[in-house]
């Protein structure tokens, strides 16, 4: 029975190669397509960074990287999924600043320690922006007004516990002021309310108000960054004004903590090559996003610093659970 023998041979052959595959897989990562989980909806800032990165990194990995959006819970659903993924490098994720804020709110099963950072790609600081008709021309005038009128200055943010709310709270605690924080469903509605003069200021990123700055309808008073923004060099940093507050949102690639070192190294190297491409940087600039690459270890340091800061801040303002 020739046929029978052939089948046996095929089965044995398949089994052997399957066993060999497993051994090879760890050494020759990646051997199949990689899923990049984005915890926010398609079309948003995090998604745009992810898609630009996937485009670029595809040229430096033997297998393709595909974006999958897992939305919900202000990022908690997607981030939980990244944390719980099998640590084999085939499900990696976009880690955002919410990794360091959500655990304090008591709505997440992860902490910052559950992730191994691969590369930070983008960061946007918070900025204090007011209507162009507002009487305050400088941040000092604005803060002085807030001091005289505690609770009267309404600052719009993108949701309670979200990064821009925390930024405004950080400014309030550091400068001993009292604002009225108004949460909106995202940064855009808050900016709209500011344009209509329904609130006094917003704490969203310069990128989210840039078109209105260009049109002359809004004015940035200060940014919460270590250095001035390249796009708006006239706006001072709070640090320059003696208020040591830096708050920024950031986005980068992370993998589950237990991912083997060789996979982490492969991804780090590929990411480094991807972000060095001019095409990737141009695409970010085009989308009004700032390029802010940090390699894995430095990204980890930045992440830990934020985790510590938000832990203290959120306890102080009574948001921690």
């Amino acid at each position, binding site marked *: 029975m020739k046929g029978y023998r052939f089948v046996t041979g095929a089965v044995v052959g398949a089994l052997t190669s399957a066993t060999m595959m497993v051994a090879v897989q760890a050494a020759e990562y990646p051997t199949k397509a990689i899923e990049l989980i984005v915890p926010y*909806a*398609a*079309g948003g800032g995090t*998604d*745009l960074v992810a*898609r630009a990165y996937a*485009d670029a990194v595809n040229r430096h990995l033997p297998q393709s990287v595909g974006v*999958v*959006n*897992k*939305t*919900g*819970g*202000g990022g*908690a*659903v997607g981030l*939980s999924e990244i944390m719980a993924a099998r640590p084999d490098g085939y499900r990696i994720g976009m880690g955002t600043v919410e990794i360091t804020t959500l655990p304090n*709110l008591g*709505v*997440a099963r992860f902490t910052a320690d559950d992730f191994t950072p691969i590369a930070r790609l983008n960061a946007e600081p918070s900025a204090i922006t007011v209507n162009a008709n507002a009487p305050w021309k400088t941040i000092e005038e604005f803060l002085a007004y807030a001091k005289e009128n505690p*609770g009267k200055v*309404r600052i719009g943010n993108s*949701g*309670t*516990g*979200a990064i821009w709310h925390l930024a405004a709270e950080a400014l309030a605690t550091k400068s001993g002021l009292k604002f*009225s924080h*108004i*949460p*909106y*469903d995202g940064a*855009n*509605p808050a*900016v*709209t*309310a500011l*344009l*209509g*003069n*329904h*609130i006094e200021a917003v704490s969203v990123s310069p990128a989210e108000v840039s*078109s*209105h700055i*260009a*049109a002359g*309808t809004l004015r940035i008073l200060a940014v919460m960054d270590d250095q001035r923004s390249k796009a708006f060099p006239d706006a001072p940093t709070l640090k320059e004004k003696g208020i040591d507050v830096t708050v920024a949102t950031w986005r980068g690639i992370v993998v589950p903590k237990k991912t083997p070192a060789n996979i982490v190294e492969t991804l780090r190297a590929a990411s480094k090559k991807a972000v060095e491409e001019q095409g990737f940087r141009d*695409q970010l600039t*085009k*989308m*009004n996003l700032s390029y802010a690459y940090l390699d894995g270890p430095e990204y980890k340091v930045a992440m830990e610093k934020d985790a510590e800061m938000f832990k203290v801040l959120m306890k102080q303002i009574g*948001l921690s659970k």
Partner: protein
Amino acid sequence: MYELDMLLHGAQALFNQPMALLLALFGVTLGIIIGALPGLTATMGVAILLPFTFGMDPLSGLLMISGVFFGGIYGGSVTAILLKIPGTPAAAATAIDGFELTKKGQAGIALGTATFSSFLGGTASVFVLIFLAPVLARFALEFSASESFALAVFGLSIIASISGVSVIKGLISGFLGLLLATVGLDPMGGFPRYTGGYTELFNVPFIPVMIGLFAAAEAFKSLEDPQVRAGMAAALDRIIPPWHMFRRQLGNIARSSGLGIIIGMIPGAGADIAAFVAYNEAKRFSKTPENYGKGELGAVAACESGANGCTGGALLTMLTLGIPGDAVTAVMLGALTLQGLQPGPLLFKDHADLVFTLFAGMLVCYVMMLVVGLGSLRFMGRILQMPKSVLTPCILALCIVGTYAINNSLFDIWIMLAAGVVGYFMQKWDFPASPVVLALIMGPMAEANFRRALSLSGGSYDFLYTRPITAVLLTIAILTLMLPLLRRLWAQRSPGGPTTINPAAGSSRMGTPE
């Protein structure tokens, strides 16, 4: 006239760019397909196409995206009318009367009317965008939290007019929706409510609930007797509505388009709200309001022209102020910036050539939508000839795939199926499903904006009567709620009218959450 001149120039420029027209056609077709499938939304379509526009010239990219936007809003009506599966939340309003018409064997005319109404509403809104944009631009900024709250209360009051036979059953459905709307993250405090520890429940899974209540429930119902053919095979003999019928809808369409345009301009309000509001007003002004809910062509015309009227309104605020009114225009705003165009008052002056070519292209998109729509209807209508034993499993499969596509989440599928079971019994006991959908749209909007308005005013309730738009909208809301009661009283006086008064209708002002 400067605008007209520029528009003609734009049209000329446009027809020298066959590639842009081809991409627009592609966009419109894709939009209709996306709109017709439950779970796939115009936002998703636009977001997926966005990276492909990177390499295109600005006109082609923006026209393709506009095509998806327009087609996506219209496409929802097709499956809503034929199968009672609203492809988009706005089509949930169309489904109320559209599916009744199909049951009566008038699917063809219902689809034709929906297509023409979408075309007219959309085209009217683009014309408003072209000629009145600078005049109307500031309107959107008048809208603060208190106005949005009042709009949402008005939206909730519409439950009274979409309840069908029994207002009390409609109100029960509406309150069920409001209860469901309390699940999720608290809109102001950010803490979870009734989530049972599931992060998936942090946002109310609105679209899965809608797909379940409408489509899955309908599919479960037809499982009862799978042998029956849909039995509406001959229904699609006529698609283009006869002129004497359509003429009567023109006033209705004009009013609904106007409402759609205004609602489109309001930040945070979109096609879904416009469709329900247009339905309500069409019923209010109709000579035969009792036919609404039982298969009235005017209802289909109103919903579709209202929903598509939104497109021009939303584009207006986006282009003139740089404020995106909804998720689709937010992505479009990104596309504009990518192409080096800065939305705002200067856009119309600095890039007049491109902007007016784009406007001409948008009008062409709507013509394409009309042609593609009418052309595909006969093909789509064949669905009705399928035996139920084939159609029903297909619908259920579509429900599951569509639900999964929203968030790539299995959890949503269970929600959808549970809603389907609830919807099945609601249908059996004559509880209408559309009040649930309406409450799920309006409830969170009313709650969040009421509390936001309170924090804006420092805890004072004055905003309820000191702000003119708020006061007017709240007054209309109360009138809408009282209308069924007043009608009953009126009918009671005249001989032969119903003699019982529905006690719930009077107390229904409690439709306001909190």
